[in-house]
């Protein structure tokens, strides 16, 4: 049955080579630390799906933001679950991306020819942090309001352009309805777009040039130009 269906699609779409490149590619013998990237990707998918679901009820206006979040949490079936997954997923995403990056550093996997993978990864980490910062304001409760007051105020200490940066981040002098909508727009449109572009390049390269094997002691010994100082 499954064979028949897949054959039907194969005849019309020719997707088998793509499947082979994605799922049946060769990978070096690696350990569990190499699953951190996949784990980050899984959490990212969770964030995208639960985030989309939250927009079904969430309203980014000072009058409605807090109440709509409370409505999701207390009155909508499984609303606590969807919101909880998005909330905890955000922390998990930062932690997993950080650990994934440490693994890459310790294995020297950022070196040639994987520099582009590395730099898009750094970009993804920055985007993840920006997601966290813009998302934190959205419930529009006391904690969110004051955290964002402090967070945006930090921009002010930038030399010369500090005041200007603060005004751009807040959309004016104070934290207001304008701040809320620009954080929301950034959180659901700007950052996801950047994320998908960077992630696309990152994943393409992972498939295209493969991942590096863990470095070994022999490999280091073979290195011809190691000079040992006497």
């Amino acid at each position: 049955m499954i064979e028949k269906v897949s054959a039907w699609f194969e005849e019309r779409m020719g997707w088998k080579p793509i499947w082979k490149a994605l799922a049946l590619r060769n990978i070096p013998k690696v350990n569990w630390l190499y699953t951190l990237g996949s784990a980050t990707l899984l959490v990212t998918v969770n964030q995208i799906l639960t985030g989309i679901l939250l927009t079904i009820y969430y309203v980014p206006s000072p009058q409605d933001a807090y109440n709509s979040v409370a409505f999701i949490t207390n009155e909508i079936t499984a609303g606590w679950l969807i919101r909880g997954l998005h909330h905890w997923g955000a922390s998990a995403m930062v932690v997993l991306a950080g650990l994934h990056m440490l693994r890459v550093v310790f294995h020297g996997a950022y070196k040639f020819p994987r520099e582009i993978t590395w730099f898009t990864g750094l970009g993804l980490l920055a985007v993840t942090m920006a997601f966290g910062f813009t998302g934190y304001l959205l419930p529009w409760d006391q904690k969110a309001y004051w955290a964002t007051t402090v967070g945006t105020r930090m921009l002010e200490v930038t030399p010369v352009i500090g005041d200007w940066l603060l005004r751009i981040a807040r959309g004016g002098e104070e934290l207001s309805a304008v701040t809320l909508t620009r954080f929301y727009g950034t959180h659901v449109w700007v950052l996801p777009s950047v994320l998908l572009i960077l992630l696309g390049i990152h994943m393409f390269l992972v498939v295209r040039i493969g991942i590096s094997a863990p470095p070994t002691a022999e490999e280091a010994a073979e290195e011809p130009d190691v000079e040992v100082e006497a």
Partner: protein
Amino acid sequence: MSRRTFLSRATASIVGGIGALMGIPTVAYLISPAKARGGLGVEAIPLGPISKVPIGEPTLFKATIERKTGWVTQAEELAFYVSTDDGRNFTAMSNVCTHLGCRVRWVDDEEEFFCPCHNAVFSKTGTVVSGPPPRALDQYELSVEDGQLFVVGKIEA
């Protein structure tokens, strides 16, 4: 079973399991507000004194209630036609056309309710005389206290 088939089947079932685990709450989450059914929303809606209702002539009463939809509480205006034949027994009827929801109005000369949207005609008691509506106008239960009219609930047909 080879190692390869075992692993691909195991992977497929784990993915399917996660899908179901997430899919079911997702559907529940999306359809959740559809479960809310509009009752009156309040115990009783005060309409006004019975002295305002002339015998034999349906009279429109308006009432405002607070209704909570989602996280927003809004004032909603309701209207009822109250009639009496003897000044003691009163009936109340919704003015919402049972076709597609326009407001009907009492036409004195014709002694009938008329809906302008698709030319429906209802009798004095609310039954369909002509036009597209599938059923009679909704009837409401009234109570009278100290000469004041209160709508206390819908009468299910």
